[in-house]
């Protein structure tokens, strides 16, 4: 750890210029390999999500996708987001998903006419979409390359911007989550109330 650099950073805070510099260990090849490995995991997970017919398998594939993304975030110097990705997405959200899958005891998907039509129409459409996106990306000039030696955005920098400039959106988001919790509770309870109502009328 380069404590001198850290001290300098503490003395002269500059949110936009990364100060905490990791020297590249052995050039960019390492990052390239890491990128290919985890991008591969990521794509494989996503494709597996499509191919699996049981929701629990899809959920596990999604966890793979998210965790590999966390590594890619780390490669891109977003350490806080990498951790948040693992904790929030792979942890909280995916646990919720698996919970619901198990709770509802969702079985294998059933095949319908609509799903076959969706396959026939959907795949070409998605391929076209991907082609358009890829063309747009590849045609763009001056995108440059991403190298880890360009620096890591520290959590400190992130939080300074977040709590100085974007405090209000942050608070609003917390309110949003609170409301979402209340809504989730109300939705699940509400159905129970209706069901008990129906039972009551049925028993009469």
């Amino acid at each position: 750890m380069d404590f001198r650099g850290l001290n300098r950073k503490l003395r002269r805070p500059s949110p936009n210029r990364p100060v905490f510099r990791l020297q590249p260990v052995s050039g960019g090849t390492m990052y390239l390999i890491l990128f290919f490995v985890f991008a591969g995991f990521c794509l494989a997970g996503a494709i597996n999500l499509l191919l699996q017919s049981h929701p629990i398998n899809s959920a596990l594939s999604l966890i793979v996708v998210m965790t590999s993304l966390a590594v890619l975030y780390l490669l891109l110097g977003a350490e806080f987001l990498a951790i948040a990705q693992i904790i929030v997405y792979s942890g909280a959200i995916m646990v919720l998903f698996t919970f619901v899958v198990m709770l509802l005891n969702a079985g294998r998907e059933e095949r319908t006419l609509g799903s076959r039509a969706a396959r026939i129409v959907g795949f070409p459409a998605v391929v076209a979409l991907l082609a358009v996106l890829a063309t747009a990306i590849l045609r763009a000039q001056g995108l440059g390359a991403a190298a880890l030696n360009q620096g890591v955005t520290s959590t400190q920098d992130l939080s300074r911007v977040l709590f100085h400039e974007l405090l209000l959106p942050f608070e609003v988001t917390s309110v949003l989550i609170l409301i979402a919790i209340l809504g989730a509770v109300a939705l699940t309870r509400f159905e129970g109330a209706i069901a008990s109502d129906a039972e009551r009328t049925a028993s009469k």
Partner: protein
Amino acid sequence: MSLHQDVPLAWYLLLSAALFSLGVTGFLIKRNLITVFMSIEVMLNGVNLSFVAFAHQWHAVKGQIFVFFVMMVAAAEAAVGLAIIIAVFRARATLAVDRIDLMKL
């Protein structure tokens, strides 16, 4: 494109586009409501990746903060969405998307 050290930004973006497209595909062809919902998460993650990549490229902290907000909203969305799925399942006893074609419980 040389492989000498850095990963070109375009590759990240291509990965992001691929993730997004896979998400769209999942949304379109999956038949289970929960899996469809998962596909949405894949799409969100694809978009997040390009945000992070751009933020890294242009040293913009706000790009990362945007991803942070997307995560928060995704968490809220997951909570409400799964609650709705539970409610729908209670009313219909099915999770097949093709069976759920009325805009009410």
